[in-house]
């Protein structure tokens, strides 16, 4: 494989999270507008200075990013719509960074946002994808809970993971969420609470599931000299990978596309897992976070349970993970679930995370996972961010 260009000279700034709510009568457009306004305010920019825009949302129908340009009064020379769910954040970075690097855009606003009306999640499930409506949803109508129950059941029996192992991930994230003002779930969670919760789709119980909610996340991509001129703390992209439909011949998912590209990722960043100070995984279910520990090189395949047992995943622990509470304690605001760990990662490496700040965090790994098209997540990606202050 020929070596690719680095992402040198391009940075991420002005992470913004519009506080989530469980149900919202507003539209996705409203949430995206709030998030866009938030990131612009954080950067001190006027929206006329944005010439590139990238949106991700599940509840924007019938609009796409195109409709948003007119809706929000954006005149752009670069526009993208990324319908990749939990992988949207990583993919947005990769595309926007190249656009800025090549001079196709000066400032790209990357935004993900979704609303959550009463009953809108159920409607989304039935029509999520063609394979889902043909071959998954008719079987119990369980949606992603059913799909991840199957993956979790298989993972547990194959690699000896226990509910306590997954519980440790969830409990640590709830502890982290208690320090994050915006996290939706602020009630302390004990391992006993976790283990005693009602079953949703065995072995998935209540606290293994993310809560659908409404929210928005945004950040800006620009040249480093511009960020310096604006006096903004920024994160450099040390490495980034994406992969779609990896390991298609695996009969059931035990690994994601990260495992194909992990060496490339650390190669680009010229570091290894030991060089990561804080990790933000895509945590729609704890088994997926465990797979990311394995596939991104923190332990071997099958050693995820042991890795979790050996480490403290809280903000102050030896392996700080999903420091804002992640989706499991912060809520899943649709496509914003692909951004929640990213805005937090930018804050961590720029030392602006306040209550959830990991002391001395300089390098963060953020990974994304998206789209259970039929029986497995198809889109994976990861990015290593390094912080700098102007």
């Amino acid at each position, binding site marked *: 494989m020929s070596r690719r260009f680095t992402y040198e000279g391009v940075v991420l700034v002005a992470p913004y999270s519009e506080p989530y709510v469980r149900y919202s009568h507003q539209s996705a457009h409203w949430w995206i507008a709030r998030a866009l306004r938030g990131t612009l305010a954080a950067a001190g920019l006027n929206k006329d200075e944005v010439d590139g825009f990238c949106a991700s949302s599940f509840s924007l129908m019938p609009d796409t990013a195109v409709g948003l340009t007119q809706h929000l009064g954006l005149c752009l020379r670069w526009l993208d719509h990324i319908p990749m769910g939990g992988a949207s954040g990583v993919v947005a970075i990769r595309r926007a960074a190249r656009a800025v690097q090549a001079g196709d855009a000066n400032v790209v606003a990357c935004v993900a946002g979704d609303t959550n009306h009463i009953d809108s*999640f*159920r409607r989304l*499930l*039935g*029509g999520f994808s*063609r*394979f889902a*409506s*043909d*071959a*998954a*949803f*008719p*079987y*119990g*109508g*369980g*949606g992603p*809970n*059913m*799909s991840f*129950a*199957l*993956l979790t*059941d*298989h993972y547990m*029996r194959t690699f000896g993971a226990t509910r306590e192992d997954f519980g440790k991930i969830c409990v640590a994230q709830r502890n982290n969420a208690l320090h994050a003002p915006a996290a939706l779930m602020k009630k302390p969670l004990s391992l006993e609470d976790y283990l005693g919760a*009602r*079953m*949703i*789709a*065995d*072995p*998935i119980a209540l606290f293994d599931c993310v809560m659908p909610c409404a929210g928005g996340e945004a950040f800006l991509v620009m040249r480093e000299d511009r960020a310096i001129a604006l006096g903004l703390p920024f994160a450099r992209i040390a490495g980034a990978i994406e992969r779609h439909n990896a390991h*298609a011949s695996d*009969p*059931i998912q035990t690994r994601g596309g990260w495992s194909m590209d992990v060496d490339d990722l650390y190669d680009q960043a010229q570091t290894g897992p030991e060089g990561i100070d804080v990790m933000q995984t895509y945590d729609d279910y704890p088994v997926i976070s465990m797979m990311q520990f394995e596939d991104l090189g923190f332990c071997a395949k099958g050693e995820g349970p042991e890795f979790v047992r050996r480490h403290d995943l809280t903000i102050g622990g030896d392996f700080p993970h999903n420091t804002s509470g992640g989706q499991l304690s912060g809520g899943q605001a649709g496509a914003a679930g692909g951004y929640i760990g990213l805005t937090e990662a930018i804050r961590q490496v720029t030392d602006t995370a306040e209550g959830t700040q990991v002391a001395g965090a300089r390098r963060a790994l953020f990974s994304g996972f998206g789209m259970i098209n*039929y*029986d497995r997540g198809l889109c994976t990606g990861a990015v290593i961010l390094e912080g700098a202050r102007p």
Partner: protein
Amino acid sequence: MSVPPPPKKNPLERTRAPQLPPQTRSRAALGLSVAAAEGRFALQHCAECGTVQYPPRDACVSCLSHDLRWRDTDPKGKVLAQTTVRISATVYFRERGDWRVGMVQLDAGPSVVCHLHKDTPPDAPVRLINRLDRAGQSVLIALPHDSPYSLKDDPQLQTMTSAPRHRRILITDGRNPNAPALARALIKAGAASVFVGEAETWLPSPQRAALEDMDGVSLLPLDVTDTRSVKTLAAELGGKTDILINNARFMRPGGVLARGDTTFAAQEMEVNYLGLMRLAQAFGPAMCGRTAGGDNSAVAWVNILSVYALSNDPAYGCYAASHAAARSLTQNMRADFAGAGLRVMNAYVGPTDDAWHDPLPPPKVAAGALARSIVGGLEDGLEDVFCGDVAQDFITRYRENPDITEREMTALGGNQ
């Protein structure tokens, strides 16, 4: 392991509104439902490279060929993972409680999300079957590998069938020679009661004594050519008919030129086509209204059709034409009943073993064999049943090429 009889319905409780499992399928996936209607396990096979694929696609996942064929496929596999869905996003599954779902890796290649029979532990060898759910759409179901297991012995999966067990069943024509065999087979299959309609009750009927002798069978006046008679019985019975089997038939041999006028044809249409319509209009709404009444519910409507409804047999040309009309009406009924989840099962037969087919050589379908096919089809949840060697042979040829079949049938005045 059999399913217990349903509790008596409490008339003070609200009758549950019909709910269906998810209905949406792509056009490609309808190929699976076509096979499910006959109980076949078929998957897409690429004609160019042989890849077997699932879920259904519009191109081969290996070579991108669009030449994809639905072929019967080895149903063996093993359970890779299982779950019990306890909280469903759909009302249908919520009403039905915990629901077992699994992922099976087929020996033929693909991994399949499917309903799991209750006796299928992890890593167990299983065989998949392809059936219609209450939405009338294909679902794949894993049964234990050993052959005696069926949908009947899992209370959850049994809801996908129209098994006669504990059901109240109406047979519309007690004068048809097949009526006693049908009633006997239904009682044997556990039907709670069998009502048999009889037209012109003042006339002698060769079947009456046999029917009156059977426990659980009662004869009631019903003339499908008389709208008032049909409505009268529907008023009495419509709200408790779980399965209706329309065996009313008027037939005379001969095609267009064998007859001098349209008298017989009018009677054929009166019974075979308009009779069906009268029954559907009188009983259909009541049956559709109680498809979700828990265990006490309407499940199926059965039509017995000549296989020559598909392509005319000139020796019985006018009769076949009336059945072609009736068959078209059953397609309409399927659409009208679909929203309630009331299944329309068509049992296609060749020549039956009775006086009107005397001149024909064997094989012919005996009444007992027809009854077994119908009960089997109901227990298996099928939509199309081809009963006997002639119907089986016909449908094989018809599927291969309907136009050639038509020419075979009509060349030199017919194939007999």
